[in-house]
């Protein structure tokens, strides 16, 4: 969820350009292949050592403002919601704001009691007795709040949920 400001290049993407990245994530979390949430958005890729895909509602003046900023040598630090991180080796990962769209589209979800969910917000794994198939899941609490992107692993007769990116990030790293 870092920002790669600096000698960053910003490129406008089309739906076609971004589809390949989003579909990787959709596949991972077993989601309905529905890109409707991008219909009213401009899509940008911010690239330096790594890349992020960021989306913002379309408005008349958006590109005019970005062009005006560029004309005086200023690049935005971010635009709207950062939804996907693409690392240098090509790994594609969802960022926290993307969860608000994914929870409506994906089937790989695990609901945890609040006490266990809280442990994940410290970036720590939790162990369950229940058997859950290995894979990538959206981890939710019982009140339907998104808590983390998690990986499920089977260890002996137990299930381990390892948070890959959790909402505690906002406190730990966000400042």
């Amino acid at each position, binding site marked *: *969820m870092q*920002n790669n*400001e600096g000698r960053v290049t910003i490129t406008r993407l089309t739906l076609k350009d971004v589809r390949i990245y989003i579909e990787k994530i959709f596949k991972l979390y077993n989601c309905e292949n529905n890109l409707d949430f991008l219909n009213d958005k401009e899509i940008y890729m911010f690239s330096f050592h790594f890349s992020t895909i960021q*989306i*913002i*509602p379309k*408005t008349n*003046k*958006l590109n005019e*403002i*970005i062009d*005006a*900023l560029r*004309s*005086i040598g*200023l690049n*935005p*630090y*971010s*635009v*709207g*919601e*950062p939804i996907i991180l693409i690392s240098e080796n090509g790994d594609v990962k969802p*960022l*926290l*704001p993307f969860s*608000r769209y994914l929870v409506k589209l994906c089937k790989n979800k695990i609901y945890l009691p*609040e006490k266990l*969910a*809280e442990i994940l*917000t410290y970036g720590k794994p939790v162990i369950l007795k229940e058997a859950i198939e290995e894979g990538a899941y959206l981890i939710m*609490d019982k*009140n339907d*709040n*998104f*808590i983390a992107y998690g990986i499920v692993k089977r260890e002996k007769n137990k299930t381990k949920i390892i948070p890959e990116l959790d*909402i*505690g*990030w*906002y*406190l730990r*790293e*966000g*400042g």
Partner: protein
Amino acid sequence: MTIEEYINKYNKLFSISPSLKAISLARKYNFLDYMVERYIRIMGDNETEEFLYSCSFPLKKSIRCNDLLIDCKKLEEKMARKGFELEKVPWLKHGYIVKKLPKKPSLGATIEYLSGYYYIQGLASMVPAYVLNPSENDIVLDMAAAPGGKTTQISQLMRNKGLVVAVEKSRERIRSLYSNINRLGVKNVVLLRTDSRNLIKSKLQFDKILLDAPCSGEGLIPEDPSRRTKTTIEDLKYFFMSQVELIDIAYKLLRPGGILVYSTCSIAPEEDEAVVNYLVENFNAKIMPISGYPSVSGLTEYNGIKFDDSLRYCIRFYPHKSGTEGFFVCKIMKGE
């Protein structure tokens, strides 16, 4: 009049000789002498002591419900189940006082907080965004945006429509701004790390601008007792010069007929009325009335210096009068 000429003209603002009364109160409440002398000149003897006394007590914690992500009634219920008692503030659409807190979790570590359902924010500091009153079609500039309380509130009021350009020059502080924007589900912000002064090189014009200016924080003494002895009169003059420079830039970036809200978390007239007065004296700027808040009028005279009469339309918050942090808000319309 140039900025330099204006600053020289008002240099007398910074000539303060503390009286015996001020020195005595300053000793009693552990403030700098010159600060108390200024309070006496603003409020008179009796009210000054009331104000100094009120600074000894921390303010009640308060939050802003983020109805972009949750219905505020539902938030009240969720928080009540965790032992937080919230009381709606009648004069703030999304403001709540936290009347009771459990031992655990802390207000800034609940799942509801991490999910972006609320922002921990002083009551008076919620006022500037309401006064700005951005609409869903506006292009808004937030000139000193970190940590993002007011930026996210502006987006909330715009229902994530229109566009907000949020500027912050500090590399450290922009991280918290970025984090808060994302946490609170804000979608319509272009975030820029630069000094707002650089924007003047562009041809950009904004419908509305919020300048919550970097300041001495003299209104935050109830929260941070170190501020009783932190700011010297020279520091205050430095803030004044920098604020006049910023408000000059803000005004130039505003479209004719546009609205600028200037605010500070300071009760210093040197950082408040004296700064806004620069616009009234030099441009076709009109101060607009603000109503509906438990505040007092802006000052039209201080330390023997007369400001424009319309400065009375600005509003001031004090802990002993409003039960809030000390704060100043002024609404300015740019002449066509």
